[in-house]
């Protein structure tokens, strides 16, 4: 069965609307498709029992905190209740802390930067710092200095040493906040993240399999799901 011959049905001002069926089996084979329906936003509904348990756990946790702070208020309660809720209390506090960390990352400065390279490779730093411009809260991340060196034992091992200025209310910038990626799929290793004065010094290595053009992205991870490229090296 072949597709019907297209017929022009409407000659408009800009274009012609063509009356024709879309490609379909058996004449055509679907190779790839995407539609929002294929990836529906699933909202997980928590069972009522789970909510009730959470609320009870929360109340017990609050009571246990109050008990620790104001023990005299709990003279009438049994010690069993308090001891069984200790772990719940800790979990609750941890979650709160984590959420605070995510939302308090802010940045200050706006200008990119100086680059030094002891190697012969060419380094490009984008002036507009790539994706960070799409994350308003991170527009100001400043890559202060970037040094690229080779591991002499193995020419395929690149060592990247760079400084980043990121202001944050808490010192929560660590290894997890950075990702080094070559050609979009080769992961580098973040060795150390060290805070020196107002900047973070990141020491990392990446092993590239062979000679060729590599695009190495230095990414800042805002959260588990969001990151932005703060610099790109072409070598």
């Amino acid at each position, binding site marked *: 069965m072949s597709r019907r011959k*297209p017929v*022009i*049905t409407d*000659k408009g001002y*800009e*274009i*012609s*609307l*063509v*009356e*024709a*069926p*879309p*490609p379909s*089996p*058996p*004449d*055509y*084979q*679907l*190779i*790839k*498709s*995407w*539609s*929002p*329906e294929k990836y529906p936003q699933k909202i997980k509904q928590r069972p009522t029992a789970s909510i009730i348990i959470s609320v009870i756990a929360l109340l017990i946790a609050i009571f246990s905190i109050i008990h620790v702070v104001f023990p005299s208020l709990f003279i009438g309660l049994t010690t069993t209740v308090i001891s069984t809720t200790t772990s719940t209390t800790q979990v609750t506090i941890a979650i709160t802390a984590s959420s605070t960390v995510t939302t308090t990352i802010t940045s200050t400065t706006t200008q990119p930067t100086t680059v030094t390279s002891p190697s012969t490779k060419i380094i*490009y730093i*984008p002036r*507009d710092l*790539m*994706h960070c411009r*799409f994350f308003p809260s991170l527009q100001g991340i400043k890559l202060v200095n970037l040094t690229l060196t080779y591991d002499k034992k193995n020419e395929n091992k690149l060592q990247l040493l760079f400084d980043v200025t990121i202001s944050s209310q808490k010192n929560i910038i660590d290894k997890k906040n950075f990702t080094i990626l070559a*050609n*979009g*799929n080769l992961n580098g290793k973040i060795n150390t993240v060290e805070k020196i004065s107002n900047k973070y010094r990141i020491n990392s290595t990446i092993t590239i399999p062979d000679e060729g*053009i590599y*695009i190495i*992205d230095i990414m800042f991870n805002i959260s588990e799901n969001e990151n932005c*490229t703060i610099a*790109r090296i*072409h070598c």
Partner: protein
Amino acid sequence: MRWHKYQVHSFAHVIRGIISECIKYLPNEAIGFLVGMYCRWGDEYYTLIDDYIPVGGSSSQYHVIMDVESLGAALKILEKKYNDSKHFIIGWYHSHPGYGLFLSDTDVKSQITFFPHPYHVALVIDPIRKEYGFFKLSADNKPIKASYAIWRKAHE
């Protein structure tokens, strides 16, 4: 007006060709036009892309600009190859080497200026991550992902 479940239909050889063009220009961005038809079948509308025209210009890793000569040459190719009044430039493609699928502010401005109609599409290719996606403008000129289907002839 009702859109087909897949707003954009295209063919594997077209997408392959465009990706090859984008790889050729690495690490820089590549740009070109999408050629196709605006179609209706029953009460459903869709955009069919069955060809592309690469356009030269100046590019870097982070931007690409079409030059006037290349634009003129592309239009001549279109006129010569498709003198059927059905095919026209139905959108554009460009690559984002290694930085994912989205329309930047500049891309959205280009889309609004040159491809503002609902049947117009923008194809963004990331040849490094080996991903691609189609975009359109919403009624309030925001970029939205367009559903698509890529086909190949059976028994090809």
